[in-house]
C-alpha cells in the first residue's frame, strides 16, 4: 500500500475545499439559529453541535466517532428478544 503524501501535501490539496466546507457548516448553524429563535429546542440541533465538538478531538478516528454519534446502539441480546435463536456451530 503506497503512502506517498505528507501533511503539507495533503493541506496543499485540500485546504481551500476544507475551508469552504467549514464555512458551509458555519452558515448552516447560523441558518438554524435564525430559523429556531425562540422555538423549543430540537434535539437534532444539539446532536449536530456535539458532532462538531468531536471534530476538535486530537485523537484519530474522528469520522468513525461522528458516525457512531449518529447511530442507534447495538443490543447484543437482539436475537433473544426477537426469538430468533442462532444455529449451533
Amino acid at each position, binding site marked *: 500500500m503506497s503512502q*506517498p503524501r505528507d501533511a503539507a501535501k495533503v493541506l496543499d490539496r485540500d485546504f481551500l475545499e476544507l475551508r469552504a466546507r467549514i464555512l458551509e457548516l458555519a452558515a448552516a448553524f447560523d441558518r438554524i439559529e435564525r430559523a429556531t429563535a425562540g422555538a423549543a429546542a430540537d434535539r437534532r440541533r444539539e446532536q449536530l453541535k456535539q458532532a462538531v465538538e468531536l471534530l476538535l478531538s486530537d485523537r484519530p478516528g474522528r*469520522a468513525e466517532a461522528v458516525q457512531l454519534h449518529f447511530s442507534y446502539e447495538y443490543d447484543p441480546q437482539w436475537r433473544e428478544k426477537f426469538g430468533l435463536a*442462532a444455529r449451533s456451530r
Partner: protein
Amino acid sequence: MTAYIDPHIHMVSRTTDDYKRMALAGCVMMSEPAFWAGFDRSGVEGFRDYFRQLTEYEPKRAGLYGIEHRSWLCINAKEAENVSLSREVIAMIPEFLDRPGVLGIGEIGLNKNTKNEATVFLEHLDLAAKTDELILVHTPHLVDKYQGTRMILDMFKGDSRITPERVCIDHVEEHTIKLALDAGHWVGMTLYPTTKCTPARAADMVERYGTERILVNSAGDWGHSDPLAVPEFIFEMRSRGHDESVIRRVVHDNPLAFFSLSRRFSYDPRQ
C-alpha cells in the same frame, strides 16, 4: 485508462446512455443485485419477471457496449416485511440459480432492523448455505447502519455452514468496515451522495485498512446516484499519488477474485 468493474449497480434503472458512458470510462464488467423497485411488488410473479430481466435482458443490453453483466437474486430488505411473499420468492430463486451470469444471493440485508427482516435474512442464508452460493449483503442506511451491521455479522457468526470469505458486506463506512473485515468478510464501499460514502472517504479507508478484500461500487439506481462513481474513486486515488497497481487491485482484481468464488463464474478478458 484503468479497466474497472462496478460490483454493485442497478442497471435496470439506468439509461442506455449510462452503459455507453461507463464503457467509455473503462468499465469492463458490472454486477447487479436484486433490489427494491421503489414500490412494493404485488406478488411472486413480479419477481419472476424481474429475475428474467436481470438474467436474460440486461446482460444483452450490457453486451452491446462491451460490458460483462452478472447478477444476484433475492427479495430485498424493504419488501421482507411481507414474510409470506418473501418465502414465495425464496422458494422460486433456485429456478434461476443455474443461469450463467448469476453470482449468488443478494443484496439481502436489513433496512430498519426488524424481526421480519431478520427472519427473511436468515431464510436467505439457509438457501445460500444449501445451494453453496456467494452472498452479497446490503447494510442499512444512516442511523440504522451500525446496529444493523452488528446484527448481520451476528447472523453469519451463528451459521457455521457459511464461510466468511464467501460473503461481501456492502455499504460499509468508517464505523462498520473494521467489524466486517475482522470477521473475515469482503467489504464494499458504496460511493453514493449524502447517505453513504464519498470517493475521498473511500480512499481514506483504503489508506487506513489496505486493499485486501475491499471493493468499491456506485450502487447507481433510480435515485440520486452516479454510475461513474468508481472512476471518481480512481481519479481521487490517482490524484493522491497512489500506484496504478493499488488502484487496479481495488477496482478490478478484487471484484474478480470475489466473483471467482462462484462456481459458475467465468470471464475471458478482451485482449
